[in-house]
């Protein structure tokens, strides 16, 4: 009931970096292209899995998202 589209939007926002508007837009583009590519060239059943897999990869390599700025933590 709208859970999956909502999640995808959140994934797109995290992908670009939370709080950065151009990042959210680019994240949306990347997610859309990726899902279509996976459906077209590979197995459409794995579409959601690949979308989340790429998100996890991005978070592991660059935890602030594609456009995120690295801010130090204040103690």
């Amino acid at each position, binding site marked *: 009931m709208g*859970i999956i589209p909502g*999640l995808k939007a*959140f*994934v797109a926002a*995290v992908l670009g970096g*939370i709080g950065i508007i151009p990042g959210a837009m680019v994240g949306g583009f990347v997610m859309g292209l990726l899902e279509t590519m996976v459906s077209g060239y590979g*197995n459409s*059943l*794995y579409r*959601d*899995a690949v979308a*989340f*897999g790429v*998100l*996890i990869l991005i*978070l*592991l390599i660059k*935890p602030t998202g594609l456009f995120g700025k690295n801010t130090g*933590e204040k*103690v």
Partner: protein
Amino acid sequence: VIGNAGKEKTWLSFIIEVIVLAALFTLVQYAITIGLVNQSYQINLASMSINIILAVSLNLINGFTGQLSLGHAGFMAVGAYVSVILTNMLDMPFIAGIIAGCLAAGVAGFLIGVPTLRLKGDYLAIATLGFGEIIRVVLQNIDAVGGPAGILGITKMTTWPWLYAAVIVTILVIVNLMNSSYGRAIISVREDEIASELMGINTTRYKVLAFVIGAMFAGLAGALYAHVFLYYKTRKHSDF
């Protein structure tokens, strides 16, 4: 129980606890045997026990460790599938299925926990949720375990003794863990991660430990679930 960790526990209170637990078990078992507790109530009992195990194990991760994990249903699915494959397709005893389900879910928890627990807050929530979705999608696409229809025709094996023992073991393990030095380290990670790291606690290690134990008990709940409701379908648990 967490509050009076310093109090000395006497043998008397231990014996009284054992007697009360045994009496409760015997009472319900007797009621089932003489037909006082019918099928419908037995299903309710099973549902209650499984939800207790799930809630207590999720509380270890979300409550005590303070790491928002949304992928708990994925570990339950791993435990259920592994145990059903062992008991139904390979004709192993139920205990082997339960142990294998727990271990498989624990391994899944370790593999997921090690990379994702470096993340914090929203990012951790979305990463665990993503892993839960990946487990669901992968399980749904393996035709050997029924594909999207789920596993059907499971033999009923979960009975009241299994459920009761599983609930007691879950609660005992988690209460004792939280009363130990590991538990205090876990609580310190939740209260202030930077401060506990300064005190020499390896925060990643304790977070992964809590995550793996939580995942193992979710696998236990999954194994019991599949053998009482006699079918298992991933969609049921991830489609909240």
